[in-house]
């Protein structure tokens, strides 16, 4: 017997706080289009009670969950519905990922190979015959456009500019992620440009592994945990010398800050607060009057901002939006926050392609109605999905800041000249 009455609810992922109110079901993008998925309430806290008694109540259809966490954003009681579902997959699933899932999940291994042979890889991935083979042999949907691979990795570009970084008086580490490294180094370059302009040198981590989000989604939990431990170790060392570990991807940020602990049992409490998305870091420096940004007078763009699911879950969209609002020439529309449907590797799989497009349809429709010059979002897979499905160009807010930035004026405002540069 307890000596005192327990006054606080302490169930795992707060699952006992569920009132069965059904609000989460309104916001589940999957349940609306896929009846084989039983929805966040039933597959989450409802069945969890049964699973705790007998694992036979586990249903492999839980793999249809996108892990978008919109159920958690909607829940008035703070139940971590998405975590309950993902944790159940980790605990009970007996499904062993096949070659296709392993390929999709190992973004850094595949990315490393692909960048080495980028021209051939990009050429072949664009061919319809390749798409047909991937479709029939690997069940990667033939309609999917592959993000192209860069011939030069961001890391290789960075090496050429590493020495310059030491000259700045402040420093941050950059967790570039697989996307900036293999597919779109320009994002990394934009980040370095902006940080340098405000007096921050950029370092890389001693070792960066893929954050592991695709490994978790594809059932490769042990590998995800190993990579996560390595990242946290590198970050722990990094924050001894750097003010923060910054990212330009909402999903990498969310995975490292929240999923590591909630799903992979990686202890990150000591580094978590130092890991931030770049827009938030910049906004806070500006707010504290520590840095200033100056923008080009001739930069005029109509932008629509899409709130990526994990940005929504972190509650940080306000930082990217407020930062973009500082660009005087920006005509900004904030789109209704909805899932774009791709959810990382989910939308690449043949069995999910149709649902992925159905889920994104209302967002695509709204983008076409707004008809912006560029869509801004903090997530790279949203970028692929929106570019493929709407034809509109998508940029990370950091790239837009970099494009709009008056570098010389910004350096002057932040007294960079006076330093030893």
């Amino acid at each position, binding site marked *: 017997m307890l000596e005192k*009455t327990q*006054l*606080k609810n302490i169930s795992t992922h707060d699952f006992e706080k569920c*009132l069965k*109110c*059904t*609000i989460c*079901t*309104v*916001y589940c993008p999957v*349940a*609306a289009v896929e*009846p*084989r*998925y*039983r*929805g966040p309430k*039933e597959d989450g806290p409802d069945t969890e009670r049964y699973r705790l008694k007998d694992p036979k109540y586990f249903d492999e259809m839980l793999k249809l969950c996108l892990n978008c966490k919109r159920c*958690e*954003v*909607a*829940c*008035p*009681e*703070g139940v971590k519905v998405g975590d309950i579902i993902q944790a159940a997959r980790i605990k009970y699933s007996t499904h062993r990922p096949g070659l296709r899932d392993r390929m999709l999940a190992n973004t850094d291994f595949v990315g490393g190979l692909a960048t080495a042979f980028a021209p051939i890889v990009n050429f072949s991935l664009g061919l319809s015959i390749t798409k047909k083979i991937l479709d029939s042999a690997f069940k990667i949907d033939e309609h999917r456009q592959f993000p192209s691979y860069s011939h030069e990795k961001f890391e290789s570009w960075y090496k050429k500019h590493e020495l310059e970084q030491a000259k700045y008086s402040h420093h941050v580490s950059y967790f570039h992620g697989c996307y900036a490294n293999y597919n779109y180094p320009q994002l990394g370059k934009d980040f370095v440009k902006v940080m340098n302009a405000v007096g921050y040198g950029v370092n890389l981590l001693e070792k960066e592994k893929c954050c592991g989000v695709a490994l978790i989604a594809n059932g490769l939990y042990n590998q995800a945990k190993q990579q996560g431990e390595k990242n946290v170790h590198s970050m722990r060392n990094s924050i001894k010398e750097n003010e923060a570990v910054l990212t330009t991807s909402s999903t990498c940020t969310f995975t490292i800050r929240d999923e590591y602990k909630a799903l992979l049992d990686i202890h990150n409490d000591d580094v978590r*607060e130092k890991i931030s998305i770049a827009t938030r870091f910049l906004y*806070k420096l500006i*707010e504290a009057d520590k840095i200033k940004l100056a923008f080009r007078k001739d930069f005029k763009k109509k932008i629509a901002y899409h709130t990526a699911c994990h940005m*929504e*879950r*972190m*509650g*940080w*969209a*306000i930082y990217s939006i*407020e930062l973009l609002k500082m660009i005087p020439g920006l005509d900004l529309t*904030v789109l*209704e*926050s909805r899932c774009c449907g791709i959810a990382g590797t989910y939308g690449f799989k043949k069995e999910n392609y149709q649902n992925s497009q159905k889920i994104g349809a*209302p967002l695509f429709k709204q983008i076409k109605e707004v008809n912006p010059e560029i869509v801004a979002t903090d997530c790279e897979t949203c970028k692929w999905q929106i570019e493929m499905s709407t034809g509109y160009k998508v940029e990370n807010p950091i790239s837009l800041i970099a494009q709009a930035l008056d570098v010389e004026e910004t350096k002057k405002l932040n007294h960079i000249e006076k330093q030893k540069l």
Partner: protein
Amino acid sequence: MKYDTIIIGGGLSGLACGISLARKGQKVMIAAAGQSSLHFSSGSFDLLGYDKQGNIVNNPIEAAQQLDSEHPYSKIGTALLKTRAGQAQELLNTAGIKVNGQVEKNHFRLSPIGIAKPTWLTVDNMVTLESPDQFPYKEVIIANICGFLDFPVEFLVDNLSRKGVKVTLKTFTTPELEHARENPSEMRATNIAKVLEEENNIKKVADEINQISQTQDIVILPSVLGIANPTAIMLLKQSIHAQITFAATMPPSVPGVFIQTRLRQYFQSQGGMFLKQNKVVKGDFTNHELKCIYTENLQDEPLQADNFVLATGSFFSGGINTNYNHIFESLFNLDIDGPDDRTQWTKENIFETQPYMSYGVRTDTNFNVQKNGGKINNLYAVGSILNGHNPIKSADSEGVSLLTGLQVAENILKK
């Protein structure tokens, strides 16, 4: 981050308050933790449905004069009630939520099981009654979607028949609705509404309803259309020969989600910042003033404002909570009206007036709250968290939320 006013809670009262302030040019933030109880809306807004004796109220403005001094309406003042009610109706209509009703004469809404309840405003296109026994039609067809369980038609038929209405029950389906039916438990009103956002799917539903009805018929449908905008309902109306009207379903409520979404969008269109997924976790108080608040996800970001409004709801939304020892206001531990002795909270007979229903935060007539007996000069409470009213027994829930939201906006602007 600095605002003129920060409202904690993104439901009906918070949004009403936020919209009025933003419309007057204030820089307003609403910090929300999860969705609101509007997801359980009947599609109607109650002002005052029953008096103390439990009798149906005909004229809410007149009946409000008999309320106790602790009731939020008494604090607004009976002289102002009608003005605030008019403003609330205007606010809803401007937000794109077309409602029908009169402030000095209640009409009746139909509950999902067919019970008539007194109410003030009802969303356009939903079935309403002039008096509890006078159903507007002598003969109706109730048409339900095959397999849709959240529309308890047998009860509805039974209760309408008792009012002397000749009811025929019919069902229909389409391939898209059959697809949704493959998951019976997720075949909820809101998921059906998402299927019925597409023009083609609406047309197919219209074809099916035209098969089972004639031009002169009145067809009652479950309220499963128009989750994002009213065009789905308009399109269906145009494509069906018979006259159609809608009845409330079990939650989640499609009209409720529509109301919530429209108000939030209207607030944002007036320049308001709606911060989702940010549960407020603490506040800094000095000299009887709340200086700033912090949220779970913006922990190191002081959110400052001249004025703050607490719109966190009652027990259901977590604004007020209990443990085995006492009742408390969840966020700042503000002063509450409600006894510590838990045996006094409830009555054994569930149909009796339950004392806990009227517990809430203590405020003065300006809706300023108190902490440890001292007034907090720039912190107000609005909506269900207020003490002194029982939303079930008096049917005053939405009225209290809307009117106190507007009143506090006025009090802040007057300062």
